[in-house]
């Protein structure tokens, strides 16, 4: 076993130094009954029904290559999936730099003198997230968009001191809503959902009814929402009572490259997912959440934060700071139980955004937007209308596809996954609704092909 260097000779030497006869002397404190039944069997199907000796590296590679081939992916299949997780073009340097052993195999930077690389990269990540969302304060990352949103609601609750309810927009991703509900399940918090109107946008009348009857600590909306359209954040903010924070969970951070940011409209917390910026989809993770907010909420921020300071030689340097909010210091009084988070993925995001830069980030947004506009016009021309007409879109939208089941099957027969069917997520009114998403890997041929198969 190459990862286990202890030789039999060395083992003997170690036993002598320790002063024992055999390994069993070291585990004598385990009750014999527990010790005797400790062996386990590993069953990996007919191939390896009882894997006692492991596979060598080459055999392992073979096994996993086969397993990966049991998935159907590009170029064999093309897809138009989104809804919070997005395919994206990952520059070679992102993988190569993030795989450097000094980044990959270092620890959480609790010892700043020997962790400056990670610390400075996080400081740059915080700066990027602040600038993109137009908020003044960012933490060092969260697990992903859904858990970041749940943490935002928990923070709003701590700030409100007494409010026992929170509002979620129904047009927020179903997954974000479920995760938020689960994280709040231990608290006596009423979670109410704000309906959407005939344009798929937050119903402001329903919102004002709920804010009057419930005194909620926060409203969570997304921008663009799960149907792909942009909410009027300024109008929403205006209609909220001062005690109710506006939390904007952004399912698509890349939209902020060309659309006004939530901070511009007075959001109080912006929380969401940054996977679409340089991290593969990987069946849902690891991804990376971000969390930005107003300066005055610093003491209630969950997760780690990096700050700039000086060293004993008066040089600029970085350190984890304000950790008295955190679980390892405050224990049961902590702002969150989060410990290990997404350091390496936040690094990927930082490398990716640095490489794209100001212009590249804009052209990423414009590419998505232009591809979507093209697709939309073509689908409309083929009598596939938008589910919600009166809204503006970035890169995805819900289309009403006549005879959806049949046409979906036709697409699959050509290895095209045309989008996410919404019936199971939003009920019978969405019987024929399909959320279709473009990504920068698409070109005109892909879009034409989709229109052709879906429209016939």
């Amino acid at each position, binding site marked *: 076993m190459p990862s286990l260097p202890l030789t039999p000779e060395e083992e003997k030497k170690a036993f002598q130094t320790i002063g024992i006869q055999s390994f069993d002397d070291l585990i004598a404190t385990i009750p014999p009954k*527990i010790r005797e039944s400790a062996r386990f069997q590993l069953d990996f199907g007919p191939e390896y029904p009882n894997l006692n000796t492991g596979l060598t590296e080459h055999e392992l590679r073979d096994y996993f290559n086969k397993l990966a081939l049991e998935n*159907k992916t590009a170029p064999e299949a093309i897809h138009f999936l989104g809804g919070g997780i997005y395919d994206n073009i990952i520059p070679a340097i992102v993988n190569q730099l993030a795989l*450097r052993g000094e*980044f990959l195999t270092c620890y959480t930077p609790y010892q700043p003198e020997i962790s400056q690389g990670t610390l400075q990269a996080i400081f740059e990540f915080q700066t990027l997230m602040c600038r993109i969302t137009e908020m003044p304060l960012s933490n060092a990352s969260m697990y992903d968009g859904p858990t970041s949103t749940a943490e935002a609601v928990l923070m709003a609750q701590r700030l409100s001191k007494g409010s026992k309810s929170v509002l979620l927009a129904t047009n927020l991703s179903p997954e974000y809503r479920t995760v938020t509900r689960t994280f709040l399940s231990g608290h006596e918090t009423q979670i109410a959902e704000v309906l959407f109107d005939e344009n798929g946008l937050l119903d402001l009348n329903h919102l004002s009814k709920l804010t009057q009857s419930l005194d909620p600590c926060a409203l969570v909306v997304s921008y663009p929402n799960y149907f792909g359209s942009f909410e009027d954040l300024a109008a929403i903010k205006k209609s909220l009572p001062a005690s109710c924070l506006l939390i904007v969970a952004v399912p698509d951070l890349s939209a902020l490259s060309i659309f006004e940011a939530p901070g511009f409209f007075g959001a109080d917390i912006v929380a969401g997912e940054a996977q679409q910026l340089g991290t593969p*989809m990987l*069946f849902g993770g690891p991804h990376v959440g971000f969390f930005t907010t107003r300066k005055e909420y610093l003491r209630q921020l969950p997760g780690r934060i990096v700050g700039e300071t000086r060293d004993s030689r008066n040089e600029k340097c970085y350190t984890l700071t304000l950790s008295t909010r955190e679980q390892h210091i405050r224990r049961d009084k902590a702002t969150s*139980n989060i410990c290990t988070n997404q350091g390496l993925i936040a690094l990927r995001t930082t490398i990716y955004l640095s490489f794209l830069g100001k212009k590249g980030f804009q052209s990423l947004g414009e590419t998505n937007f232009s591809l979507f506009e093209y697709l939309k016009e073509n689908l409309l021309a083929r009598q596939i209308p938008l589910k919600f007409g009166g809204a503006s879109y970035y890169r995805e939208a819900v289309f009403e596809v006549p005879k959806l089941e049949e046409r979906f099957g036709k697409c699959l027969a050509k290895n095209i996954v045309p989008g996410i069917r919404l019936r199971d997520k939003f009920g019978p009114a969405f019987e024929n609704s399909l959320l279709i998403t473009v990504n920068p890997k698409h070109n005109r041929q892909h879009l034409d092909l989709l229109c052709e198969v879906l429209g016939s």
Partner: protein
Amino acid sequence: MSTRNKAASGIALREDTIFERSASGRTGFELPQLTVPSKKPGSLGRKKAAELPEVSELQVVRHFTRLSSWNYAIDLGTFPLGSCTMKYNPRINEELAALPGFCDVHPELPLDYCQGSLKLIYLLERALANIVGLDACTVQPAAGAVGEFTGLTLIRAFHEKHGGHRKYVLIPDSAHGTNPASCILAGYEAIPLKVGKDGFMTVELVEEAISKYGRDIAALMTTNPNTLGVFEQNIAQIAELLHGIGAQLCMDGANMNAILGIAKPGDMGVDVMQYNLHKTFSTPHGGGGPGSGPVACRSHLAPFLPNPRVVERNGVYQIEHLPDSIGKVKGAFGNFGVMVRALAYIINHGSSGLRRVSTNAVINANYLRARLQKHYRLGTSTPHFHECVLSDSKQIEENGVKTIQIAKALMDFGYHPPTVYFPLTVPGAMLIEPTETESLQELDELADAFIEIAKQIENKEETFENSPRKTFVGKVDEVGAARKPILSLDDRSL
């Protein structure tokens, strides 16, 4: 004895933030040529572009390579960080987790498009449950802390369904900081339990708590081996006591690296536990994540596991939604990339190899303990498993030198310090976990450094007040950072 110090000097290059290399109009990255007409958003369009750096590819490469050179890492040297299991993780894992067939899978793909990924989850959940002797497993939680929360929420759902909600979770004072915080998040009150002087829980202690709180106790949450590196020898009896009042035994599996094939939590009476795949099952720590915190449980808790569940029917992998599920604790299926590494690690080792991981981890920790105990006082005389704990009490009494100074001194010898001031039950604790991937030669060199430091203190040559001296930056002013927080580049001018 003189130590040949590993820390030499070399060239490390200074580097400002990437934003300070920016030049207007420069870009490093090219998207594919647009094949459709270019369009821009109307009234909602962003008027002021986000100020991202404008740099070339080489500038990005140099920037992050320079930054990386300021980090200490396992690839550079021994990382004796107790409770964190900073072992070497085979590089093949990285190759496998980066396979396009895994990376390019969107979680909303139709099931026959993602059979490979579903199978991987199914196999991993089954293997993890087998290893610990429990009935079911979910790999959805994103990290250990989410796993703790998930385990406690399963218990909450179980009690709410059978007999009603209970208020308290008992937590030994040697617990990880995340344990009490996870209790609060799950809606419980954490009741601290003072552990006995030998460093483990006694039956009397738990009996006392039970007589005081009775059936309001939902669970006891313990780490085993505990954070002192000591096996909780009374655990099976404690489990019986808890089960007698309908309470559950919840185990933090952060220290599983000590007992693979040596003791099964299922045999100890544990009802639910979480793992840290990034510790025991081999995902590099990455400067603080990503991790993965699967949860295994007995069958009575299984109906409440997070949705969706991956099941197998005649060789086809499907998903199911449990009606009594607690919901979801992470987007999609969890940190799949970490699961690839874990399954690769398990298959690479096989059952006998995994047991050897733990036996070697225990031997290594005890070897270090044997070499160091003449020079530092032990935090407990009870036998250690995969980590050992030292105290600074000798150094403080004799020369006024504290753990923090010893920790910073180790950096000048070329090592990452051990976990310091944890567990809280040992004054000035240094928690040392060498892991199984270090050779005896490396352990000897580390021990030599520890001993050299102790000798310099004893001979009054050094107090290490101003350490570290050789690191890329000097002692960092952490107090100043909190006093006037500069948390983004745009705070500098404020």
